[in-house]
C-alpha cells in the first residue's frame, strides 16, 4: 500500500502528479458542486442561449440554464461511473482471473473462452442494448459498464497466478496444509494486485468515455446532469450556440487525459519490470 517511498517515486513523473491533483480537484468539485456553482443547474434563467459573458462564463442553454453550473454538476456522473464501474470490474476480474489461473484445467478453458467472447463482442452495442431494454438508472449503467470491463482484469490476474502458482512460497503454504482460499487470497493474490490496478486505471478512462457515449445517445440517467447529456443537448443547436458543446467536451477530454496520465504514473511505480531499469 502507498508508502512514502512509493509516493516519492510516483511524484517523479510530474505529469502524473499534476493529473492526480487535477482529478482530486474534480472530485472535490463533484462533492461541493452545489456550493461552487454560481446558479442552480436546473433553474430556468432569464436569458436563453446567451454566449459566454461575465455573468455566465460558459453561456446559457435554450432554457436559460447556466452552462458552467451544469458542467460543474456534470462532474458527478462521470466520476461516479468511472470509479464504481471499475471497482465492479476489479472485483469480478479478480475472482474470475484467480479461479482460472489457480485451478487451471477445465475451469480455465471455460472461463478463458468466455473472457475471449466478451472481448470480441462489440461491448458498446451490448451496453446500449442492455440499458435501452432494462432502464437507465445510474446504478444500472455502473453495473453494465463494470461487468463489461472484467475480462481485461481477469487476464492479467490469471497471468500472475500462472507465474506464481508453482513458486516455492506457494508450495510451502500448500505443504503446511493451507486451504485453497488461503493460498489464493493470502499468498498469490497480493502479487496480482499491482498489475490489476494498472489495468484498472485504463478502465476508469474507458468507463468515463462509455458513460459519455451512453448519455450522448440519450441513455444516461434522466435525473442527473452528465457531460455526455450536455453534448447531446448541444447537438441540435450546435450551429448557433457552439459554446454548449465546447465546454463539456473539453471537460471529458481533460478528465480522460488526466486519468490516463495518472495511470502511466501508477504504472511507473508498480511495474516491477520498469523499476529495475
Amino acid at each position, binding site marked *: 500500500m502507498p508508502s512514502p517511498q512509493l509516493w516519492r517515486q510516483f511524484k517523479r513523473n510530474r505529469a502524473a502528479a499534476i493529473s492526480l491533483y487535477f482529478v482530486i480537484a474534480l472530485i472535490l468539485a463533484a462533492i461541493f458542486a452545489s456550493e461552487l456553482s454560481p446558479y442552480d443547474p436546473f433553474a430556468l434563467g432569464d436569458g436563453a442561449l446567451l454566449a459566454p459573458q461575465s455573468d455566465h462564463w460558459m453561456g446559457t442553454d435554450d432554457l436559460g440554464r447556466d452552462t458552467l453550473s451544469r458542467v460543474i454538476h456534470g462532474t458527478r456522473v462521470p466520476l461516479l461511473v468511472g470509479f464504481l464501474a471499475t471497482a465492479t470490474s476489479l472485483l469480478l476480474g479478480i475472482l474470475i482471473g484467480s479461479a482460472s489461473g489457480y485451478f487451471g484445467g477445465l475451469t480455465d478453458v471455460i472461463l478463458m473462452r468466455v473472457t475471449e467472447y466478451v472481448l470480441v463482442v*462489440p461491448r*458498446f*452495442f451490448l451496453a446500449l*442494448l442492455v440499458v*435501452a*431494454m432494462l432502464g437507465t438508472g445510474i446504478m444500472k449503467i455502473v453495473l453494465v459498464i463494470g461487468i463489461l470491463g472484467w475480462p481485461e482484469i481477469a487476464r492479467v490476474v490469471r497471468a500472475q497466478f500462472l507465474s506464481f502458482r508453482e513458486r516455492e512460497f506457494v508450495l510451502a503454504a500448500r505443504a503446511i496444509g493451507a486451504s485453497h482460499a488461503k493460498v489464493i487470497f493470502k499468498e498469490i493474490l497480493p502479487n496480482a494486485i499491482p498489475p490489476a490496478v494498472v489495468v484498472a486505471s485504463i478502465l476508469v478512462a474507458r468507463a468515463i468515455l462509455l458513460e459519455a457515449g451512453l448519455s450522448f445517445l440519450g441513455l444516461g440517467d434522466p435525473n442527473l446532469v452528465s457531460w455526455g447529456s450536455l453534448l447531446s443537448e448541444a447537438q441540435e443547436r450546435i450551429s448557433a450556440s457552439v459554446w454548449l458543446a*465546447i465546454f463539456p*467536451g473539453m471537460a471529458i477530454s481533460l478528465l480522460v487525459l488526466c486519468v490516463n496520465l495518472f495511470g502511466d504514473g501508477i504504472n511507473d511505480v508498480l511495474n516491477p519490470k520498469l523499476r529495475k531499469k
Partner: protein
Amino acid sequence: MLVFNLLLHNSSTPVLQSLRDDQAQRSPRDFLGSLLENTSPVSPTNFILRRLFHAVPLLVCVIVFNFTLIHLAPGDPIQALVGEFPAPEAYVAEMRRAFGLDQPLYVQLLLYLKNVLTGDLGFSFYYRQPVASVILDRVPATLQLMVPALIFSAIVGVLLGILAARKPYSISDNAISAFSLFGYCVPAFWLGQMLMVIFSIELGWLPSQGIKTVGADLDGWSSFFDRITHLLLPFAALAIRHLAVNARMMRSSMLEVAFEDFVMVARAKGLAEKDVTARHMVPNALMPVVTIIGVDVSFLFTGSVLVETVFGWPGIGRLMYESIVKRDYPVLMGNFLITTALVVAVNLIVDLVYLWLDPRVKYKK
C-alpha cells in the same frame, strides 16, 4: 521539456501494455505455434475453418443473451419482441405462437434459436420491414465509413509510428506523440461536433449531415465527389482515435525492435540505415500492430454509433440510435447480433493479413 518527454514517450504505458497483452493472448501466433509443432506449413483453409468454428458458439451465446434480455426486460416479453408499438392483435398472437410464449422456457429458447438461425430476426413496426432487411440495408453505409477509416488509420498510423521512432525525442517525434495522446483522450463524437463546427458551419467547406446531397441529381464523377465530401468529416472523427493508437503502438514497437540483435547484425554488415529500417525493423515491429488493429475493430463500431449519430450517417450505428429513441427492441437485438458477426468477420480478415505478413508462415501451394 523533460516532463513533456516523459509524458509523451512512456513506451510502457498501461494502455500499450494492455494492448500488448491482447496481442499475446489473441494473436494467431499461439495457435500457429501449436500448429507449427505438429505439421509444419499451415494451410490457410484449415486456419479459416478453425476460426469459423470458434465463432459459432459466440454467435449462439449472443442469441441466448438476447433471449435472456427479452425475459429480463420489465413488462411482457411480447413487448420486447414487438417493440413498443401498437402492434395488431393478430400479429401479437402470431408472435406468441411463433416464440411459444405459453410453453416452458427451454422450449421458448429452442424456438427462439430456431427462428433466429433461420434468419428470422422479427419484424420492425417502425420501419414496417423484417428486422434483418432493415439492418442489412444499413450495413453498406457503415462499411463505407469504417473500411476507409480502418485502412487509413492502419497505414498512416504505422507510417507516423515509424517516423516518430526514427529520431526519438526530436520535434517530429514530440509532435506525433502529442497528437497520439490527444487522439486517445478526445471522445470521437465531440471531435465530430467540433470538426462540424469548424469545417461546415464556420468555413462552409464540407456538408455536415448525411451520406450524399438529398434531391441532387448527380451522376458519375460529380456523384462520387459529392459522396467523398460527405464522407470526409465523419471519416476523420472516426479515424483519429485509431490513428493515434496505431501510431503509439508502432512507435514503441519500433523502439523495442531497435535493440534486437538482428538489427545490430544488419547494421554491422553495413546495410544502409533505410534498408535496416525497411527490411529488418519494420516487418518485425509490424506484427503486434496488426493484432491491435484486429482488437480495435470492435471499438471502431463503438465510434461508428456515435459518429454516425452526429453526422446523420445512415449506417447501422445511426440505426442503433434511432431504434433506441423509437424503442424498437427487435432491431436493437438484431443489430447486436449482426454487428457481432461483422466484428468476427473483420477479425478473421485481420488474422489472415497477419498470417500473410508473418515471415515464419509458408503456405503449401
